[in-house]
């Protein structure tokens, strides 16, 4: 099959790419749209380093053929900031020690963002469940849990 023209709405902007329909969304984001904040950790949907939001749902972009996202909304780590201001989750990850080597961080923050949409005030168990698809080898997850809690408290204004 030849390349096709595909329209993606990435971080609020309309983008067009010429791509093989079965190309991985991950590669299209990184190589064609130069959004390298989305990382590859395993290429088989286990680690969550490539997680992005597709129409508000958390997906592993290494498992999504780009043809499936034609005309749909994608949020990557690059779209989380509000102008120059960090999202509360980004602030919390930086402050609470939620990022060490940083390679899982974009996916982890997007998974946390998705989690807080579902549960604005999650229990620790809900955070653990919500992030169970995102592997981190550095932190033992504890500072990540702390960061998500901190961000949820800040969003609530306390």
């Amino acid at each position, binding site marked *: 099959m030849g390349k096709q023209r595909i329209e993606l709405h990435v971080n609020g902007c309309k983008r067009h790419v010429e791509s093989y329909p079965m190309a991985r969304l991950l590669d299209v984001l990184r190589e064609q749209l130069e959004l390298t904040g989305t990382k590859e*950790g395993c290429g088989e949907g286990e680690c969550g380093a490539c997680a992005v939001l597709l129409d508000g749902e958390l997906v592993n972009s290494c498992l999504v053929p780009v043809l499936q996202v034609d005309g749909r909304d994608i949020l990557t780590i*690059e779209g989380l900031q509000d102008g120059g201001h960090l999202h509360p989750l980004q602030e919390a990850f930086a402050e609470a020690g939620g990022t060490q080597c940083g390679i899982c961080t974009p996916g982890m923050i997007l998974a946390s963002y998705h989690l807080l949409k579902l549960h604005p005030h999650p229990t620790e168990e809900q955070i653990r469940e919500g*992030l169970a698809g995102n592997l981190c080898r550095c932190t033992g997850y504890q500072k990540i849990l702390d960061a998500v809690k901190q961000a949820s408290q800040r969003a609530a204004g306390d």
Partner: protein
Amino acid sequence: MFQTVGQPVPRKEGREKVTGQAKYVDDLTFPGMLMGATVRSPVSRGRIRSIEFPNGLPWEQFTIVTAKDIPGQNSVALISDDQPYLADGFVNHPEEPVLLLAHPDKYLVERARQAVRLDIDPLPAVFGIEESLAKEHIIWGEDNILKAFAIEKGNVESVWAEAAHIIEGEYRTGAQEQLYIETNGMIAVASQNGITIWGSMQCPYYVHKALLKAFPLGPEKIRVIQMETGGGFGGKEDYPSMLAGHAALLAWKSGHPVKMVYDRAEDLAATTKRHPSRTRIRTAVTAEGKLLGQDIEFVLDGGAYATLSAVVLSRGAIHAAGPYLCPNVRIRASAVATNSPPHGAFRGFGAPQSIFAMERHMDQVARAIGLAPEELRRRNVLHTGETTATRQVIREKVNLEQLLDRALDLADYHAKTKLFAGQNQRSRVKRGIGFALFMHGAGFTGSGERYLQSVAGLEALADGRVRILVSSTEIGQGTNTILAQIVAETLGINYDHVEIPRPDTSEVPNSGPTVASRTCMVVGKLLESAAIGLRQSLTKAGLLDEDYSGGEFADACARYTERFGPLKSFCQYQAPPGIHWDDETYSGDAYGAFAWAVYVAEVSVDTVTCEITVDDFVALQEVGRVIHPVLAAGQIEGGVAQGIGYALFENVVWKNGRMANSQMTNYIMPTSVDVPRIRVYFEETPYEYGPLGAKGIGELPIDGPAPAILNAIENAIGVAVNEIPLVPEMLMRALERGKVPMEASVG
């Protein structure tokens, strides 16, 4: 007392990491860049007859590199330089690199990699420690022994006759994958004019040294730049030299930039892991429960080439006798060759293996002689002024009884031991609690730091900012932040005014590899001294008083640079006074300082499903001054999580020397639901020769979890298991062996 040290200052590169702006090697693209791939041996050992390129692919478009294309030495420079970049005639392990390919199209290069046919005559191969020691086939050197030595203290043969008890045990640990989430990757640009490497690595100067031997270029023509590195854990200590060599060979031949980034399957199958081990311990104890003699045989499976095995063995053997006083100790250590990819550095570097054995064994000894495990330790722990197995006199102030008592209190150990013993009899889920007491030496072993002669420097800029000049790498552990804290504190300036550029061998001195829990203690100390030197330059020039403000410091820097030019200060390593090590007899001061710890694990064992859950974990340690409380706790928590994986989940399945489960779907590391809250506590006894009193911390936390968890499991089920990883199948066999009732109807 301190302004910056001890404060949770923001991580230097934190903002880039949380915004996705941090640049890892795979995020870089160069014009005209080719994608490289590696054709690897499908057999464990054999003679290469031919390499064929079947029809159907445009081979003329590919850059193809074999051993014959290497302009210099075809071996990766390390300790004994025995591992080839590319197999030349023979292969010695599965996945050994034989041929390199590059092409602009990454999909085509992958098709080509799979298409190349290697015709190899298999030779007899050796797998596992027992086969190697049997010496039926000699696959390395004259006897399959990569390295062997003995540590002797007193005369262990003199004790057996008078001992009240003699207890023997055998303990095994499996391979463990570092599993950094960023796989290995490199980009090379290479020509007669020079080679530049951008990559994921722990040790830029190791890569520099390796390329120097592989290419006919002077040191000034080789430049190695560390990109943001997505975890290392030891796994990016030696292998990056191999991969950088491969990328540089393809770039050298093609005249194009070449990127090589492994996918997960290749990274898992082809790169280093923690050495599998077998430890046998025979212990003599007096009637009072005092250690009389310890005879320890410690064997590591090194894989097909020597690489780092000699030094991994060294650290493992030195830690094998534990933090106990024993008058007669013999540790016979050997690393043996097998036909699997070479095992390498992984956080702890041999110590997690030998500490697992000793801390399991101490529980066996306690049980055999009828003492509580904590009481046996209490009667035998080292005190200040006493000597280790290498006859190192402990000079640090250390109180292990107190550390033990505090950890057991924090874990509510005594009450829980009683509670569980009562509940377990009528419960399907059996609960248990156990602990490990251990130490970890910081810095290179023995004379290592003296040989390294590391240099670190500082440059004061005209606006009062200070730049740190080191090759020490940030790999997630916080190098950038803690080194800046140490410099800011020593100079009395704002943390934000200290910067640390990306390590680039054309700009920074060789501060040594980022390994061995040495960055904070050794490199940090060099920077503390360099900072004192910098300040003295300003005061001697009459530009700065003894007491000064940040503004006055900046003014002094401006005036100094205007008058005299750049202001730099360098410091080279000098051993603390009174440190002696004898390489011949393996005796003396093995490490400048030790960190000390007691870890307590609480577990639940489901006797029907064979699931094991770690319910609580207390990690108490004495690491000298804590430079950054959040980062330090992060090191411990992350290390404990890796240790839980090591103990219970992370099972490398070997098939003829090849990792059969080279995927994240079947090599299982802990997720957020698999680890409990890890309760981290520090005791801080400032170390005289560490920067502001700090010692090493990075490796310590991987040493304790596995023995603490296995001790807790024995406490729960009453059956001793002396091998890790303890996966459910093994637990099931242990329950059967111990005739633990497994009926599902109860409880």
